[in-house]
């Protein structure tokens, strides 16, 4: 099946250093689905994850053993423990948009699927990084409504 864009990035937040987006690849955006579900099922964790992304998007580089753990290979895990243990997997791209740096949410999930989720996130990151190197790749950046 042919998609209009190979990569679709949906802006969630524009911080003072990084733009936070969800990563859509060939019509599938698992981070967006995860966040949509989380928002309807567990608003408190959703808000905490958003607070965390807001902070990370406001500082040049950030790493924290618990809140924003490096999983190696450029992948990070934003984990919220209470009320429910949920994890969002993200990585940085400081090049593709030129001066604008991005944090891309690749995947998310709960503790019971952590291993599989990390594998998935890595696959999606790798796929994205392969695609952006190809000349015929099309990328759509969905900005936020009302963004300057």
């Amino acid at each position, binding site marked *: 099946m042919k998609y209009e864009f190979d990569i679709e990035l949906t802006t969630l937040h524009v911080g003072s250093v990084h733009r936070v987006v969800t990563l859509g690849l060939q019509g599938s955006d698992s981070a967006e689905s995860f966040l949509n579900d989380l928002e309807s099922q567990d608003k408190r964790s959703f*808000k905490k994850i958003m607070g965390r992304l807001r902070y990370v998007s406001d500082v040049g580089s950030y790493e924290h053993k618990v809140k924003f753990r490096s999983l190696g290979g450029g992948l990070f895990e934003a984990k919220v423990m209470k009320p429910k243990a949920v994890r969002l997997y993200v990585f940085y791209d400081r090049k*593709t948009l030129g001066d604008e740096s991005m944090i891309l949410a690749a995947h998310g999930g709960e503790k019971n699927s952590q291993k599989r989720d990390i594998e998935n996130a890595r696959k999606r990151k790798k796929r994205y990084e392969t695609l952006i190197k190809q000349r015929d790749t099309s990328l759509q*950046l969905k900005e936020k409504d009302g963004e300057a």
Partner: protein
Amino acid sequence: MKITRTKTKATKLQKAVSRAMESVEAEIEYRKMEVVDLLARRMKEQGVNKGELAKRMGVANSRVSMLLSGDSNLTIDSLVRAGRAVDADLVQTFVPRGQKGVWVERKPTVRSDRAGIVYQFQGKISSSADLGLAATSVAREDAEDAA
């Protein structure tokens, strides 16, 4: 690679994210991360590790681990002690929501033993009512600087 930027009507998720970013829960998470991150950066600058911080604060290592996890209830008490342990003072204020500005070192307006360590938040002042008396005192100091 061809990059297309589009502005579309906000999706359900984008709207929810905007609301969540402004929520009190997000703000608490943000401030906890910020203060712990600032402390961790200061520790690095000062070459103080966790064990050393605990020693200087006079608390057990586990207390320091909790503090640095950013999930514990961060008290003024422990933050001031942690600050002292890395040769720094904790600075606090309340800023009217949405106010943008910078920290400026406040010159003592009266004779003070603590000169030079007092900071205040100086915003873009659209009306003097925004910052109340602080605005007037900042303005006055600026006028003195110009004179």
